[in-house]
């Protein structure tokens, strides 16, 4: 057997391992219901959940708690997922500053003792990079 063949086989083997691992490590977008099921089965893998902040009829955010003076690393909020399931979420980091303005929140983490512990929060904000709002300029007319 030629050396180049051995190398070729090795390369293919590593490539297969890479594909398997990628498939294994890839997370999924799930609902809170599924996140809870996973936790009950003892599956502690981290998942992505997409949702919106819980708001009262006046549009105020409810269930959000952050008091940096007491503990800057403790932020909790209530997220409503696409199935309208409400879940309390804890984030052991300072509150992202533009949190209230977000249209959509993507969190990564898992369920622990009835709360979802997030270790990453990604916010989808309206017009973060695209500004289609000319209001502030028209005011100077």
């Amino acid at each position, binding site marked *: 057997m*030629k*050396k*180049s063949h051995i*190398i070729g086989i090795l*390369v293919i083997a*590593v*490539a297969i391992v*890479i*594909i398997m*691992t*990628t498939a294994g*490590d*890839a*997370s*999924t*977008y*799930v609902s809170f219901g599924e996140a809870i099921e996973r936790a009950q089965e003892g599956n502690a*893998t*981290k*998942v*992505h959940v*997409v949702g919106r902040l819980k708001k009262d009829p006046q549009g105020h955010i409810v269930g959000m708690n952050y*008091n*940096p*003076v007491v*503990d*800057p*690393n*403790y932020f909790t909020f209530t997220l409503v997922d696409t199935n309208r399931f409400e879940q309390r979420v*804890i984030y*052991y*980091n*300072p*509150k*992202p*500053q*533009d949190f209230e*303005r977000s249209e959509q929140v*993507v969190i*990564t*983490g898992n369920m622990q*003792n009835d*709360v979802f*512990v997030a*270790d990453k929060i*990604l*916010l*989808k*904000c309206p*017009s*973060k*990079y*695209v*500004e*289609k709002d*000319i209001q502030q*300029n*028209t005011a*100077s*007319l």
Partner: protein
Amino acid sequence: MINTLIGDIGHASVIVAFIAAIVSSYAYFMASRTSVEVSGDTSWRKLARGAFYVHGLAVISIIFCLFNIIYEHRYEYYYAWSHSSNHLPVYYMISCFWEGQEGSFLLWIFWHVLLGVALINFGKKNKVWEAPVMAMFSFVQLFLTSMILGVVIGDFKLGSSPFILMRDFMTDAPVFKMDPNFIPKDGTGLNPLLQNYWMVIHPPTLFLGFAATLVPFAFAMAGLWKGRLTEWVKPALPWSHFAAVVLGIGTVMGAYWAYETLNFGGYWNWDPVENAVYIPWLVLVGAVHTMVVYRRSKHGLRASYVLVIASFLLILYATFLTRSGILGNASVHSFTDLGLSGQLFAYLAVFAVLAITLLVYNWRKIPATEKELSTYNGEFWAFVGSAVLCLAAFQVLATTSIPVYNSFLGFIGIESNAALPADQIAHYTKFQLWAGVGIALLSGIAQLLWWRKGDKNSFIDAITIPAMLTLLLSSLIIIVSNKFDVFNFKLDNPAYIVLLVTSLFAIFSNLSITLGLISKKVTLSGGAVSHIGVAMMLIGILFSSGYSTIISQNTSGMLYSREFPDEINRDNVLLWRNSPTQMGKYDVSYRGQFFEVKGVPGYINKEILFRTADEYQAIARADIKVGDKAYYTTGDTLEILSPENTYYEVEYKEREGDNTFLLYPRAQLNENMGGLLASPDLQHFADKDLYTHVSGVAPEEKEWGELKEYEVSAGDTIILNDYVAVFNGIEVINKVPGVELNPGDVAVQADMKLLGEKKSYHAHPVLMIKDQMMGRFPETIEDLGLRITFLNIDTENNRFKIGVNSTQKDWIILKAMEKPFVNILWIGTIIMSIGFVMAIIRRSQEGETNKSVTPKPKKARKVQAA
């Protein structure tokens, strides 16, 4: 008045550039035909060349028009309005230019023009390549210029023009219905994170790297097309070195920008945008290796074809990923989706199909050597090294493309909800770390074998000293870091130890080669030098990322909840103003908010600046001195460089020892960008960086307590909010900052002294009577959380009434970490680049002399190692 002329010139230039690219590619195609080449007819080539120069001039005209629109603040154009603003300095106007997709395409097009002109003129001796290579160039330009064409035919939109007017972009905005000639007064500005000097040079470097990958690709394609299956490697080789080094430097510049400006706590975040450049770079470096192997041993030509083509296609894929909007949730900083995804996909698909078809069609004809390389051949191990590089690239590609799989499966009707790994760093590290080990090890072995006779004994000779030095130094580092308290980490992770040992081996073996070669011919050692650089980069990454330690652990013991007390890292600390907090070996205190003032070095405390209605202007309330030099005196008007940037002064004081230093991490309160954008400040030490950023600030709108009134006379002492305050008296003043006093108006200020924890403060609240009306200017002492208002004067009894509000003291939330030996990464990058430049010089000399195919290996083999 709306200036439509400049936009029309610009748009016309885009169309000219597009048509010239079509003409040029067609004419170069005709000139490349064998019948034309044989007949010696140069008319097609002349036409093609002319068209390419017309294309180049048109591109320069587009750039001129677009820059003029930004420079002259022509906000009737959407590009100027959305990317710049009145207060932007010229050097950042340059960054505005390529903030948008259109401008960055333009930058890319511009580099292709320059490289094309260089190829036309430098290749004079060897005319056989011009026509087919430039045909490829012009064909690429055709696609790129179509991206900014902005032509609408029926429902079909081709490209997005940077010269679109506001009123045509926002057809629904009511203001343009009222007045179609409305011009906004100011633009929305450049994304503040991009207002950084690296953003002036990083994008051009990166796009030059992008552009340069086209050269080896065009040569490879020309070789396949014209049946010159082996000759293309020689002229393409210096270019592929050039592309690799420029792309490498551009990527590291981007990493350094992220390190300095963003606050994720490092230089690399495995964001798809970063990966999209890293992947083609790895493959390109692999291609450089196989091409070098081919030049020496005639092995690996097919691999060179595959890798050169793959690196270019991966650049196109990267473009598609970052610009089509397909990444969606997966990336925080991809470009805005301009609806070009169809065009981008066509660009990728056309070149993929073209290249793969040509390659498959000619595959059997590409000469391959049947003879096996022996294990004691450097070429063999260089080849294995390329395989490792490609596998590393493949791993990043497989993961980065997860959003693409979702889209693709969605496209064919299968719902897929795969997401990027939850812990990306762990995911990538478990492969990339071992790829680093492989590269370090192979670079040492391959280089030693490359320059020695290919047999066992001489290899053992060569490897002995580097191996001994490696073992010596690595055991020393391991022992010192574990047994003594020299570093603030213990090197006990086996994987990290393996990476350190192999990297040190790479350094020592390549060093021995460099020392041997340097007396013979300096440029020969380019390979060895760049491998030393790469190994240093690996060591730098190993320590700075592997042993990055957060020193801002919450030690106060005050925790909101103890739901999961042990598992969670509490990495942020709240600092009250002027109250020192222990952090690692430092006492850290937050000391106040500062601005940057034009013409004054360093930062100026907000407390001595009286803000005016124009947020860019302020009046000095005290003399502004730096060192001995006075810059402004009290009452001067000065200009604030960027009112949205606040710098938070943080003092670090070593508890043992007298070392004290100040850091100014920055935060931008920016409504458009969504809240707080924090940038770190770094303190560089020889062996580490201290990296500090704010992760939260007290709300700007303070909640003041109730007004408490005090009646005092001169000399009285009162207690305000636990601080001793002395009321010294009042004085009449002639000038009130920001107010014009007329005859008959009176202004008096109180003079108060307050004793704080660390120093005393003077407060001068002002009371004035202007036009029969009372006006009051309270004085706020942020350090003490006090606001003092001069309420009234009782002239008969010489008593004065002051009012005091108190509030919670100012605070910030801080995160700080130490990054050991991060300097080695940056130094390694520079050394790698130097090595590449040496190799470029050597390879282009070879191209010119055209003599020996094998570059003097015989002489070099005699060279003794170290």
